[in-house]
């Protein structure tokens, strides 16, 4: 199957996904389960990576700024900018594409090869709507919160790194973080996050739903899903940045 056919099939899948749920109470139950599986269970890794990457960005910036003519508060300023504009929305999304994407593909793919999806269809259930829509809503709702947390912890990680390494003063760092704060950047980052969240929920679902074969194929589909989700995120990041900041 060529790429255009995959793209066409992906959009046809979305057409089936965006239908009214057959029973709201069941949908609500699924939604809470997905929020837990795709969102809450990612909290730990998001917090851990954000904190340490923020610290590393601050340390590297501090080490690069050795000229006495460059003010130290630029370390805080640069860390804040990198974390808010790029690290939190894009880098975190690529990480989540790996963690959550592979989970989505393997769980739906296993359901496919063990005939659980056929069982849903035989019962008269729109399996795409039942399985994929709650995932999309869950990530659209939860990922902006995760990314806001990643922003905060990234910046805080930089502050902690400064205190622990004595490379810069806390006051300089805080001043740099507060300097020239533009709320539009948060809006820009959250807009990107929403787009990436949609991609993270739907591309792996597509790969899982249409998998054929057995466990080996499910494994391959998971890898492919992560690769394609990351590629699409990186490409969309470029276009969104051009459109929103250019």
């Amino acid at each position, binding site marked *: 199957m060529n790429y255009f056919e995959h793209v066409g099939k992906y959009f046809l899948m979305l057409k089936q996904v965006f239908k009214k749920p057959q029973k709201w109470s069941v949908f609500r139950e699924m939604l809470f389960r997905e929020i837990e599986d795709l969102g809450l269970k990612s909290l730990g890794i998001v917090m851990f990576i954000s904190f340490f990457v923020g610290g590393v960005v601050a340390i590297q910036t501090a080490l690069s700024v050795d000229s006495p003519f460059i003010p130290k508060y630029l370390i805080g300023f640069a860390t804040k900018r990198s974390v808010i504009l790029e690290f939190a929305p894009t880098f975190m999304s690529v990480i989540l594409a790996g963690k959550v994407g592979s989970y989505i593909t393997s769980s739906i793919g296993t359901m496919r090869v063990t005939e659980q999806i*056929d069982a849903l269809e035989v019962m008269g259930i729109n399996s795409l709507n039942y399985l994929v829509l709650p995932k999309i809503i869950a990530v659209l709702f939860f990922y902006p919160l995760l990314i806001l947390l990643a922003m905060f912890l990234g910046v805080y990680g930089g502050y902690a790194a400064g205190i622990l390494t004595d490379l810069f003063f806390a006051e300089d760092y805080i001043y740099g973080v507060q300097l020239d704060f533009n709320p539009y950047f948060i809006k820009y980052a959250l807009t990107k996050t929403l787009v990436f969240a949609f991609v993270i929920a739907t591309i792996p679902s597509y790969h899982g739903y249409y998998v054929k074969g057995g466990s080996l194929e499910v494994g391959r589909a998971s890898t492919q899903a992560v690769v394609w989700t990351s590629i699409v995120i990186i490409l969309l990041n470029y276009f969104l940045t051009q459109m929103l900041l250019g």
Partner: protein
Amino acid sequence: MIEVENLYKEFNGQPVLKGISTAFEKGKTSMIIGQSGSGKTVFLKCLLGLHLPDKGIISFDGRKHTELEIKDRRQLRQEIGMVFQGGALYDSLTVEENIMFSLKMFTDQSNNEMLDRVNFVLNRVNLNNANNKFPAQLSGGMQKRVAIARAIVMNPKYLFCDEPNSGLDPNTAMVIDNLIQEITKEYDIITVINSHDMNSVMEIGEKIIFLKDGVKAWEGSNKEMFKTDNEAVVDFVYSSNLFRKVREVYLNEKKQ
């Protein structure tokens, strides 16, 4: 009654079903047999609506499956119970939740009413005290029982089973066979079973359809199967020495 007329299905230009016509009656256990690749699974999936036939008509008590609107087709599917080869139980749900699933989805029953119904069907398949177990914690035979319980929880009019005995020991297989036949009689439903297990076929096959290369090569009851001189059926069914001997003894007794 389920009527099938002139059913054709092909994949990538390769014909798999070549004009099958037959009918399945209420209160009877019908079996589809044939070698691997003969088209049994495709035939069953066409009946279930998981594959759309290229040609032909499938009608469920007069409702032509292929001509129904999506909404009506979904309604018809709610009248169908299916036991999949591997059980196809939802891994993330407990036994109770698996069985309750279609009740939650399609009825407005209260939690207590649903629970009563779940316990009733679990009791019917002789599986008690398994409500809170996950499918992975059950044996193959228990999983099949849960799959049967799930299939009958909505009081289906039509029950389909794909290799219900695969992977089971002979005793458990017999228990499952008897259970399916009892349910068929008790609820007066149409049961269609796809099977490789000749013991089951001989035991509960009130109507047997033998498929060969996508064509219906023979049709009859388990008793008629003993007497048939259809070469293809004899070759397939009596391929083991034991069955051949049993047949010889049966035919000799009949002659005397």
